[in-house]
């Protein structure tokens, strides 16, 4: 993971959705090995912030830089270094666990099926590798998306409500996986309603204020 030690800067970002002013000058700085926990009531723009940080959404004002360069100028390069998990699992119900991973992770980096199976096993869903996603429970789907994030080996993780539908053990496992990612020098921007208990200090960003 050579790309680590890069920094994400979100600088005075404003986003409008029709008449609504969703993000009002949000700034944050995310160094390697750091996690920023984004909180706030529903509708305060947490997901919008993640979409801006991912480069999916172009802010009306302000800019986002990665390693000192504006992400919109180096979008493809930047997006190869990030793993995004939206609040919906984003799995094709007709494809199996391994296939779902192969067709997404495989676009970012060359990956073998053995690696993908290992990632599924890490997320505790090795048994779901050859089952179509349509037969999986909501929690299992969430774990498959967790495996996808792990398999991408990205420097920056953008996770939107990653704890949804996970049981207690799953929540612990995810916390542990995030911890390992940070220890390895990765960084993460996490939207979650519950408190995060990591071994490392967590910075909070409250969007309601």
């Amino acid at each position, binding site marked *: 993971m050579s790309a680590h030690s890069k920094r994400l800067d979100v600088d005075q970002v404003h986003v409008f959705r029709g008449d609504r002013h969703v993000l009002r000058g949000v700034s944050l700085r995310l160094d390697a090995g750091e996690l920023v926990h984004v909180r706030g009531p529903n509708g305060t723009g947490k997901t919008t912030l993640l979409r801006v940080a991912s480069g999916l959404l172009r802010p009306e004002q302000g800019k986002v830089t990665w390693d000192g360069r504006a992400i919109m100028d180096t979008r*493809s390069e930047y*997006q*190869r270094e990030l793993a*995004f998990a939206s609040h919906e699992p*984003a799995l094709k119900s007709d*494809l199996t666990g391994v*296939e779902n991973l192969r*067709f997404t992770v495989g*676009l*970012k980096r060359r990956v073998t099926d053995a690696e993908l199976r290992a990632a599924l096993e890490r997320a505790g869903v090795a048994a779901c590798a050859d089952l179509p996603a349509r037969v999986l429970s909501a929690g299992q789907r969430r774990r498959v998306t967790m495996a996808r994030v792990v398999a991408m080996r990205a420097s920056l993780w953008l996770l939107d409500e990653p704890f949804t539908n996970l049981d207690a053990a799953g929540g612990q496992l995810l916390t542990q996986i995030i911890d390992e990612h940070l220890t390895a020098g990765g960084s993460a921007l996490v939207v979650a309603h519950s408190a995060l208990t990591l071994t490392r200090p967590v910075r909070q960003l409250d969007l309601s204020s």
Partner: protein
Amino acid sequence: MNVGPAAALSLLLRRELCLSFRRPDQLLQPLVFFLIVTTLFPLALSPELTLLREMSPGVLWVAALLASLLSMDGLFKGDSEDGTLEQLALSGQSLGLIVAAKTFAHWLVSGAALVLVSPLVGTALAIPVDAFPIMMLSLALGTLTLSWLGAIGAGLTVGLRRGSVLLSLIVLPLAMPLLIFGANATDRAIGGESAAGALYFLAALCVFTSSLAPLAATAALRITLE
């Protein structure tokens, strides 16, 4: 290790084909529509050979156009609804490549399949066997062009809940030259005349849309993703 455009293209094509073959009902829908419409005409009108031969190019092309259009709506919709389109867009591969791969794969399972069953339809419509190669070539060029045009419409309407009507309204006017020259090529081939002029025009349209439509469709999709 980064994934080059060629490897990404092959992976995307495999993804699309894999998804299509997991849903045989959706795969067969345009094909069945094409077969039903074209075989109903001789039954409804009259099985008289001269009349059929005169009408067959028009019937064949209208049916092909509508059958292709029928499946266009789902080009980006499925991926957009389940969130996988975002994952593809964030894969670090160019969105243009993704759009091109999806559209071409869509053509393979709809347009190309239609071309392959067209001799069957041609027989039902009393098109002479000698005219089959020209008929198939014109259909291949026409359906591929239509897929590119459809990709623009699908990109523009993917965010709308009931976009399929709008999609038809956007794509059908653009497809009129295809209908005119495609039917003309087939008609000339049936009459034993040279269809070269019409075929050249279809080929030119095909090259034109293949090179520019991916850009337009990508721009449309980019707006939707925001």
